[in-house]
């Protein structure tokens, strides 16, 4: 049997890890997948241990632009744990609010992208229009649309007042109505059902064994949500229930994100109501007061994110810094999902784990029989798949 290699990548979808996927295809069906990572390995882990802690916060922010708040929050928590610093309660609430706003914009982004890839451009435009109001809120609180530079070791950098609180509440209440409307569309629109339901199936057992995290795991019925399991920041004081869907397909993973939008808005509202007054920042020594180890696990928009730092006494640089990003953990799972799917479904399945689509994607089609090689990008692959 002659199978054909379909190479998608190398400059492909993920966060700080654009990948190349080599698909072995038989006719229209994918039989095997081989990922190749590391095209933009920037050596951040090494660079982190050569900069001071304050600079590190800004460097981890650049691991991934979309979930930058998640990275700074994790780094700040890990370093605070190693330093033995306790941050003020108000800053924990502020961190939670910005972290959830970050999740809102990230989820709206990927929902829009998936809609575009399955050929529903109207919904893509609507999602992205609604994302814009969240970006404005983030700019209002932190001073920049994307790179928030908000969390810092020992607390947060800016405070919010009554004006901001009413603004956030107003925006969220109108957004919640719209998200409910979109949820209805997702539930019964025939186009979305046809392209997403039953596509890219991942069973619960496989998700667990392959270490899937975040909405990918929760879409397969796996009860993994760090906000519930190991509450950090203010999550131990607010009500939050993990969103679980049992279908395990692309549709379930998108529905998890839609429901999480609503849940996140509730968390933000509750935080705004409960937020105590007080200081937002405590002074932190520049050099580590002790040789210790800090571990921080949080639920980033794409799933469980872990930072692991070793500090050395009287040194202002971390000794070893290790980051495990959520998309990295989802790679084995997405390879499993792709087996047995149609070529036309590849973009939707890849996008359903929410890798970062910030890079322009390229794919090479190599026909092993004729040796012919064509290079196309993933958007035209998506366009072909719509025909």
């Amino acid at each position, binding site marked *: 049997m002659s199978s054909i290699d379909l190479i998608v990548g190398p400059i492909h979808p993920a966060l700080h890890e654009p990948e190349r996927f080599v698909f072995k295809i038989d006719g229209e069906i994918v039989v095997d997948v081989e990922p190749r990572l*590391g095209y933009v390995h920037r050596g951040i882990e*090494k660079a982190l241990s050569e900069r001071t802690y304050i600079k590190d916060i800004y460097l981890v922010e650049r691991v991934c632009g979309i979930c930058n708040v998640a990275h700074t929050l994790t780094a700040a928590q890990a370093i605070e744990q190693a330093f033995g610093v306790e941050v003020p309660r108000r800053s924990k609430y502020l961190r939670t609010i910005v972290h959830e706003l970050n999740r809102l914009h990230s989820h709206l982004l990927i929902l829009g992208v998936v809609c575009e890839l399955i050929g529903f451009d109207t919904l893509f435009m609507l999602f992205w229009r609604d994302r814009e109001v969240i970006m404005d809120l983030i700019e209002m609180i932190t001073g920049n649309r994307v790179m928030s530079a908000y969390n810092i070791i020992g607390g947060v950098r800016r405070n919010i007042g009554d004006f901001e609180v009413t603004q956030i509440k107003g925006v969220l209440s109108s957004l919640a109505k719209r998200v409910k409307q979109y949820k209805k569309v997702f539930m019964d629109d025939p186009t979305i059902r046809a392209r997403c339901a039953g596509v890219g199936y991942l069973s619960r057992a496989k998700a667990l064994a392959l*270490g899937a995290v975040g909405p990918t795991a929760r879409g397969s019925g*796996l009860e*993994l949500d760090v906000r519930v399991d190991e509450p950090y920041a203010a999550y131990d004081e607010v009500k939050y229930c993990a969103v679980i869907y049992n279908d395990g397909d692309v549709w379930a993973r998108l529905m998890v994100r839609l429901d999480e939008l609503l849940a996140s808005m509730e968390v933000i509202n509750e935080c705004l109501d409960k937020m105590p007054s007080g200081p937002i920042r405590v002074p932190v020594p520049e050099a580590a007061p002790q040789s210790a180890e800090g571990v921080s*696990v949080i639920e980033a928009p794409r799933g469980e994110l872990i930072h692991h730092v070793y500090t050395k006494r009287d040194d202002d640089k971390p*000794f*070893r810094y290790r980051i495990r990003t959520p998309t990295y953990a989802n790679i084995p799972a997405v390879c499993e999902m792709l087996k047995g799917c149609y070529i036309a479904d590849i973009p939707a399945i890849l996008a359903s784990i929410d890798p970062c689509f910030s890079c322009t994607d390229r794919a090479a089609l190599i026909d092993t029989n004729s040796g012919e090689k064509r290079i196309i990008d993933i958007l035209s692959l998506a366009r072909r798949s719509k025909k």
Partner: protein
Amino acid sequence: MVNDHLEVIDSLGNELKEGLLDVRYLPEKRALLVLVDKALIFKAIEALNKISGGEMHLTTISGADLGEDYIELTYFLWLLPQRLRVIVKTKLSKDDLRVQSIVNIAPATVLYEREVYEMLGVIFEGHPKLERLFLPEDWPQNMYPLRRR
């Protein structure tokens, strides 16, 4: 719920006997720290898998060269039924950087073990495909970027 970690400590002690070098609960990390001999790492993970009834989620493996004559491997696990974070640590001397791969228990490690291999030179025995993951193909052999000398 609250005392689940005590049960885990007991069962681990029964399974591993003297290979278990240290085990204690770290309240500030809300995690159970397990220190084992490197020969027993496979058994320790297997035992934890059994304790959780197969409901074990492997978060990551992180390797660190702390400038001493050993390399520290840290396995982060999450036990679903016990809702407990377990951190398993082991030390490999730099003269003999071989350790048994745990791919058979937790297929999720397949990429993490490759990363530790290329960054620190730890050889995982029994790994189906121990190759470079992130580094370019023309990176020199026996150069490990995260090693300290």
